[in-house]
């Protein structure tokens, strides 16, 4: 074993294996959640378009375009996170998406719209505050995955 390799190895070992594996579990869970959320929406694009339309953020056609593309983006991010291949862009994407979801939910809350969030199953009446809380947890999870990825590439 060359000196460089052994140094890199010891750098990797500096992190407690418990933490390392916990973060891997977080990454896989986050990926699975997005995979699941995306697939539920792909099954019924029209219903998801309805959920988006209820936010009254986009013009008519745009609701359908977002409903067609967003679930696939979620599925791609989910697959990438679960497999662990190219973790960083997927985790950033999920961070970005959740920022956007949170903003949309907040705006619906402020405007007093009584809508279902369209997060998972269409027609599920999740209270918006719970959905926002859930998005914040997802963002924290994505942040953890990004931090780990950055740490490892810096080591």
């Amino acid at each position: 074993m060359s000196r460089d390799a052994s140094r890199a190895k010891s750098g990797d070992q500096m992190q407690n294996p418990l933490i390392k594996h916990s973060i891997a579990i977080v990454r896989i869970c986050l990926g699975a959640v997005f995979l699941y959320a995306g697939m539920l929406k792909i099954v019924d694009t029209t219903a998801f378009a309805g959920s988006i339309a209820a936010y009254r953020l986009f013009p008519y056609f745009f609701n359908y375009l977002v409903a067609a593309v967003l679930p696939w983006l979620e599925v791609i991010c989910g697959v990438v996170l679960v497999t662990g291949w190219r973790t960083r862009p997927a985790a950033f994407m999920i961070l970005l998406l959740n920022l956007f979801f949170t903003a949309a939910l907040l705006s619906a809350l402020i405007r007093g719209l009584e809508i279902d969030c369209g997060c998972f199953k269409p027609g599920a009446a999740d209270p918006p505050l719970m959905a926002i809380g859930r998005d914040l947890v997802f963002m924290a999870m994505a942040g953890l995955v990004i931090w780990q990825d950055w740490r490892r590439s810096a080591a």
Partner: protein
Amino acid sequence: MTTRQSMMRLAIEMAIMVALAAVIGVSWNYRLLVNAWTGKGAEAPKAAAGISAPIPLPLGLMQVKELYDRKEATFIDSRDRVAYGSGHIKGAISLPLMDTATAIPEFGNRVPKNATLVVYCSGYACEDSIEVGRQLLAIGYTTVYYFDGGFPAWRDAGYPIARRP
């Protein structure tokens, strides 16, 4: 890799993911998107006509369910008979847009004019319920709502449905 390079790489990888999602998503839903796109063209003149004629008021799922539970409203399914047959809100009357010429006067004879009506079709992509609602307003009904989530939202919420009349 420098920070700048890795940032660039991150941006490119994210862009590829979005592009891939766009390609799959658009081709997967090609027909729906085309319908939505062409439907937009047809929507504009209807909306303009609505300024003079009275139009039905939209109701959300929760309000519609409340009316349903209190049995205060007559539900009207404005989709075609096949769609009605394969599943409709339990107790709804079939009144397809294409049959309104004969069905609306008949309905008018059966149901008192002070009844509360809720018209629905197949959800947000569908304008039939608004059109049927407008025609009902035109023959003298005063309380006409349309349920903008339509049958899909009702079904997905797990509320009572029926097949065949």
